[in-house]
């Protein structure tokens, strides 16, 4: 009996739909994903049921479990102006290049005086130093107005206010629409296990600088019926 010969066919299949799908998904994820900004400390905030989204422009105050404070300003122009102002106040000398480095370096968690030596380091070393930093100093005793956190907040508030007015005026001149909600807001992100007293002390410093509205960052929790 002769062997039954199976017809030989090439084992290729049409992959076009699969590629289509794969690229569709790639595009979707590329467009929707936003990358997490570099953080020197990982902070796990508590959850709440609010559905309000985080504002576009923020002054972020991060408080970790041990009470270290890190600050960041999302608006690069404001961040630069504030730094320049504070450099004069605290007599810290930084080169133009170092200022640029600072703006791109994410949250700050150290004294201003430590900045020059910090920025002179290489990028990898900087990340490590930032992790081990002692935080921006804040003092809630009687000398509240001399602490660095207070000055950062106060300067930022003033600079952001001016920035907002300038943008508004520019938009009016060109008869363009202006997003009134796009102003810098103060956002506090604290870890679950931070003692409330610590958070309150930090908030007290901000209140001293006449900031009274805060957005507390929380994770999302399902809303009850």
């Amino acid at each position, binding site marked *: 009996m002769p062997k039954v010969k199976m017809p030989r066919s*090439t084992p*290729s299949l049409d*992959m*076009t739909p*699969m*590629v289509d799908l*794969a*690229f569709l*998904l*790639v595009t979707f*994820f*590329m467009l*929707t*994903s*936003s*990358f*997490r900004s570099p953080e020197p400390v990982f902070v796990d*905030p*508590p959850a*709440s*049921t*609010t*559905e*309000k*989204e*985080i*504002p576009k422009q923020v002054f972020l105050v991060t*408080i970790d479990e041990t009470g270290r404070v890190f600050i960041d300003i999302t608006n690069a122009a404001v961040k630069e102006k504030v730094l320049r102002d504070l450099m004069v106040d605290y007599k810290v000398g930084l080169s133009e290049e170092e200022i640029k480095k600072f703006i791109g370096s994410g949250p700050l968690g150290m004294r201003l005086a430590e900045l020059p030596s910090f920025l002179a380091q290489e990028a990898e070393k900087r990340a490590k130093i930032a992790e081990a930093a002692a935080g921006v100093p804040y003092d809630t005793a009687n000398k509240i107005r001399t602490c660095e956190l207070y000055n950062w907040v106060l300067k930022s508030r003033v600079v952001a206010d001016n920035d907002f007015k300038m943008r508004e005026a520019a938009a009016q001149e060109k008869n363009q629409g202006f997003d009134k909600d796009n102003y810098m807001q103060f*956002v506090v*992100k*604290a*870890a*679950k*296990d*931070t*003692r*409330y*007293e*610590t*958070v*309150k002390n930090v*908030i*007290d410093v901000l*209140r*001293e600088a*006449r900031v*009274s*509205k*805060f*957005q*507390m*960052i*929380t*994770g*999302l*929790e399902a*809303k*009850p019926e």
Partner: protein
Amino acid sequence: MAEIQGGGDSQGKGGKKRAKKQSTRVDMTPLVDLAFLLLTFFVLTSTFSKPKVLRMIFPEKIEDNTNIKKPEVRDAVTILVSGDDRIFYYTGQISNATVITEIDYTKEGLRKLLKEKNFQLLTELKKLQVKLNETDEKDTAAVNKIDREVKKLQKESKLVVLVKNDDKATYKNIIDVMDEFMITQVAKYFVTDDGFNAIEKKLVAQIPPKK
């Protein structure tokens, strides 16, 4: 996989020269590999749950606070937030005879208490919500009217809740309490600065921790 046929010249002389027929298939395997690699990367790195924010407004600092009226606490509910996720409450003013009850952060604890205390406002607000759902969204006058009624109800709300914390309370505890206020729509609540007073400390210390 692209097949190449050799010896296309079999037609002999005089025949028309035909263009070689070549398969138009392209090997797509590397493309698929790349696409899936990128896909995996973006799936793994994307953060879906954007953080949400809870709005908190603190009063501005006032140097001289002797003239500030402390909130009336006659019928107030005072919530005492302590360490180890313990939470207590009592109603009215504190005295040695006050009964302080321990509750918890669950649905059956704090939320049930607040819902009961805030029952009147909650039912009124629910009625208005139903009314709001029935009215046409474009009818701004009607919507504004309901909005005003809601604000009025909140202003007239009789329930006042005070929150006090001791130095062991965590940030999570306070946010949880705030969140419960939002869920149960408590209109008037205050977080005080001074911490527990002596009587509260004493009474709380007498309550044995739950197992």
